[in-house]
């Protein structure tokens, strides 16, 4: 019996018991749909996150306190002096600008309105390092920094929240932790970013933050942003920075108490995280596919029992083991393949709806249904049908014709 006939017979058999077939297929539909949707959401999340990280700037390095991989007994904080040392033209020729920052979430009020943005204490170089521009006013100057001026720059989210408008704000006074600050500039919107919204921020002079808003030990800083002269010099700059800080902190080799991160490192980390997330989600979805497969096995076993006489007859008419095996395997694969095809559609739909909901709630997020996911789901669902069909089909094929014919 050739495969074409086997498929036609399987189709006849599947369609002769429509309710049962569709319920069986439903298990696979849900399984495949869940796998497709989860992979799409995972891929979409990955693209969104890596995309937003890529917006940070390709020539930017971050220096943090502490070590991500080693357990250290003593961690020296990063200080202003560390930041200044990185400007050494001889020890760090690849470094362009250095911007130490302090940051914290503080309460900001204006009139009756209040909000909790991220407050940055920055120096004048932060503007160039992070590529900020001003929609009005001026960025924080060195003079303001030296004089610990009570001035503040605000992001558009904060402007919206406190004033309900984005212009004509220079000269207004807002309170940060109860202390008055005069607005000297409004930042141009940067959109959503990897560190929360980059618009829900305010910036004050570094020295002001240090003296009045964020108490830190001595001259310690939270993060040092370093811009590198050329993107090609990233690795070199990273090495130079590490060398300087190692000398200053007198750390032993392999026990750095600081971490130098680039955009690529962030992307790699984010990819690892979203990758794990995708596998995790896909794995859970895969379990439902497994359950669907067991449903197929169950129905095929019932079908084999029901059709014992038919199997006996077919054998009496000359069907070999192989013929019966193919007949039932074709039927189970067909069931799961049908389920797989419908499931791909369902998964696509779910991914689309998730994307729409995300966009509606303000997160630019585009789930990606890849060709690889479709092929994977088709192959996998058919394989599930084959695998879970093997046992019932074998049982059918091994029936003895005499006993099968006698079966009532």
């Amino acid at each position: 019996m050739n495969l074409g006939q086997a498929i036609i017979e399987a189709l006849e058999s599947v369609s002769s018991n429509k309710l049962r077939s569709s319920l069986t297929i439903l298990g696979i539909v849900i399984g495949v749909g869940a796998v497709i949707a989860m992979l799409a959401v995972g891929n979409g999340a990955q693209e969104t996150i890596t995309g937003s990280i890529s917006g940070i700037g390709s020539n930017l390095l971050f220096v943090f306190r502490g070590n991500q991989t080693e357990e250290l007994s003593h961690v020296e904080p990063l200080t202003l002096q560390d930041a200044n040392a990185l400007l050494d033209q001889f020890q760090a020729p690849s470094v362009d600008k250095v911007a130490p920052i302090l940051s914290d979430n503080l309460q900001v009020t204006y009139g009756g309105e209040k909000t909790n943005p991220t407050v940055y204490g920055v120096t004048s170089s932060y503007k160039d390092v992070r590529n900020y521009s001003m929609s009005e006013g001026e960025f924080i100057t060195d003079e303001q920094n030296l004089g610990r001026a009570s001035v503040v720059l605000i992001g558009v989210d904060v402007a919206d929240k406190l004033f309900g408008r984005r212009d004509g704000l220079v000269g207004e006074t807002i309170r940060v932790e109860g202390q008055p600050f005069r607005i000297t500039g409004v930042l141009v919107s940067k959109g959503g970013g990897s560190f929360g919204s980059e618009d829900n921020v305010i910036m004050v002079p570094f020295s002001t933050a240090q003296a009045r808003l964020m108490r830190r030990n001595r001259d310690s800083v939270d993060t040092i942003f370093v811009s590198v002269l050329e993107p090609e010099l990233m690795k070199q700059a990273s090495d130079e920075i590490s060398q300087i800080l190692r000398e200053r902190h007198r750390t032993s080799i392999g026990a750095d108490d600081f971490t130098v991160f680039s955009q690529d490192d962030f992307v790699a980390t984010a990819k690892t995280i979203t990758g794990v997330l995708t596998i995790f989600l896909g794995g859970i979805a895969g379990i439902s596919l497994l359950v669907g497969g067991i449903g197929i096995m169950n129905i095929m076993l019932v079908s084999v029992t029901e059709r014992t006489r038919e199997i006996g007859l077919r054998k009496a008419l000359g069907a070999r083991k192989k013929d019966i095996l193919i007949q039932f395997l074709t039927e189970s694969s067909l069931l799961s393949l049908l389920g797989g095809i419908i499931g791909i559609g369902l998964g696509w739909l779910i991914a689309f709806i998730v994307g729409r909901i995300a966009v509606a709630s303000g997160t630019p997020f585009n789930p990606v249904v890849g060709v690889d996911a479709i092929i994977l789901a088709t192959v996998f669902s058919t394989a599930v049908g084959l695998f879970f069909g093997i046992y019932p089909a074998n049982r059918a094929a091994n029936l003895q014709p005499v006993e099968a014919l006698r079966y009532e």
Partner: protein
Amino acid sequence: MTDNVIHVNELRKIYKIGEIEVHALDGVSFSIERGEVISIMGPSGSGKSTLMNLLGCLDHPTDGSYILDDEEVSELDDDQLAGIRNRKVGFVFQSFNLLPRATALANVELPMRYAGQVPDRRKRASEALESVGLADRVHHRPTELSGGQQQRVAIARALVNNPSILMADEPTGNLDSKSGKEIMELLLNLNKEMGTTLIIVTHDPRISEQTQRIIRLVDGKIAEAAA
């Protein structure tokens, strides 16, 4: 030398039920000539079903030899037996055993599906249905046919591969006496026209008296093999 389509020698079938051995067939020997019409009779438990299963190549004998159409079949494996059944044996069952969802034509085509490449499959199936008088019922399903008509479809199916022997197991058992009579007539006519050896398993003397020879089984042995 006579032309024997079947030659059976000391054929035995022993079933083991737990510790007990049941000698369902206890060494039977006989021959059947090509074109003969034979009936196998015996009370229940006499081994006539076992003998039919062995002659129809549905089961393996425990011991003894069975030559069907010049081929020793007692030592063949399951798949080889399936091939023999497909080519050399036609079955007619008491309960017809048609595929309920398939048309008469598709039912008759079924043995050819398992025979490999058969040209003009559809044409041969329709001819077979015509020869049993069902030319106008080709596209009907079993549920749309009377018992007698269903049995005719089964006979067409049994003959479509031109078998050497036709095994009929109580072919009229589920039919009223009129259709039963018609079916017997049809079987005997086909035997005359096509020369296919006909073996009928029955307990009905009115059937067996229409055959040329009766093999009577008692306790797994042949009691009488008279003409």
